């Protein structure tokens, strides 16, 4: 079967994503689950590189893989024995959750495959940092200055909230 290079790359990335995401949710050791999640997030960044969105892929690696997964690993080390194994879950819970997930997958996949997506033949212009920067601070049409400002307020609020919640209360 003749496959182009991009098809081989897509196959590799999607195989990594599917296998490691299933391993993340079924692993019995928590640190291995965090490592598998790291692989899933890096493969997603690989998919973004394939779709020619280099900035988004870099942000994905920096924030998700390098920020959130590191934060999760720190909290794992703070709150549990890293070598303990999870107890086995009841078999009824596994079966019901698996039935719900598989029914959802079947429903979604049949809906997707039955719909004819008309792919647009317009080729995207080269996305460099100038376009992204100008769009993020644009007041006019297709501008993103309002979500930009709102997200900065959200990050400030999240930072203050996390510090206030997690600091030790001084017993006076």
């Amino acid at each position, binding site marked *: 079967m003749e496959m182009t290079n991009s098809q081989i790359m897509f196959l590799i990335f999607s195989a990594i994503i599917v296998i490691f995401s299933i391993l*993340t949710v079924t692993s019995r050791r928590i640190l291995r689950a965090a490592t598998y999640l790291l692989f899933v997030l890096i493969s997603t960044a690989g998919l973004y590189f394939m779709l020619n969105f280099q900035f988004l892929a870099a942000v994905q690696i920096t924030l998700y893989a390098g920020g959130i997964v590191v934060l*999760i690993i720190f909290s794992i080390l703070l709150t*549990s024995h890293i070598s303990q194994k999870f107890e086995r879950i009841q078999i009824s819970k596994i079966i019901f959750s698996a039935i719900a997930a598989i029914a959802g997958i079947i429903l979604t996949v049949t809906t997707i495959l039955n719909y004819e997506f008309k792919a647009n033949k317009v080729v995207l212009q080269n996305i460099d940092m100038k376009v992204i920067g100008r*769009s993020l601070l644009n007041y006019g049409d297709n501008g993103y200055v309002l979500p930009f400002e709102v*997200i900065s307020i959200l990050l400030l609020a999240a930072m203050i909230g996390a510090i206030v919640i997690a600091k030790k209360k001084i017993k006076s």
Partner: protein
Amino acid sequence: MNVDIPLNYFLILSSVMFFVGIYGFLTRRNLITILMSVELILNSTCINFVAFNRYLYPDNLHGHFFALFIIAVAAAEAAVAIAIIINIYRHFTTINVEDVDEMKY
């Protein structure tokens, strides 16, 4: 490059990742593993937005920016969630969802 891989493959991949995240959310008992499943779900919607932007609307960048903001919101939410988890651990010395039941009626 676009004509090699149909759009459906990206959508099927993101749906599988979404429902694997839902399975993990329903099955896991540790709070941190539940948070990891939520990150899987958010990541799958990011892939969806980016694929739609590339294939159906390649002249603007709406999906790209939406995915960027989803990543930022996911980071803020993970930080606050882990602060809450650390606080729960200080109080209960466990982060099993079945043991944190002091507010149960």
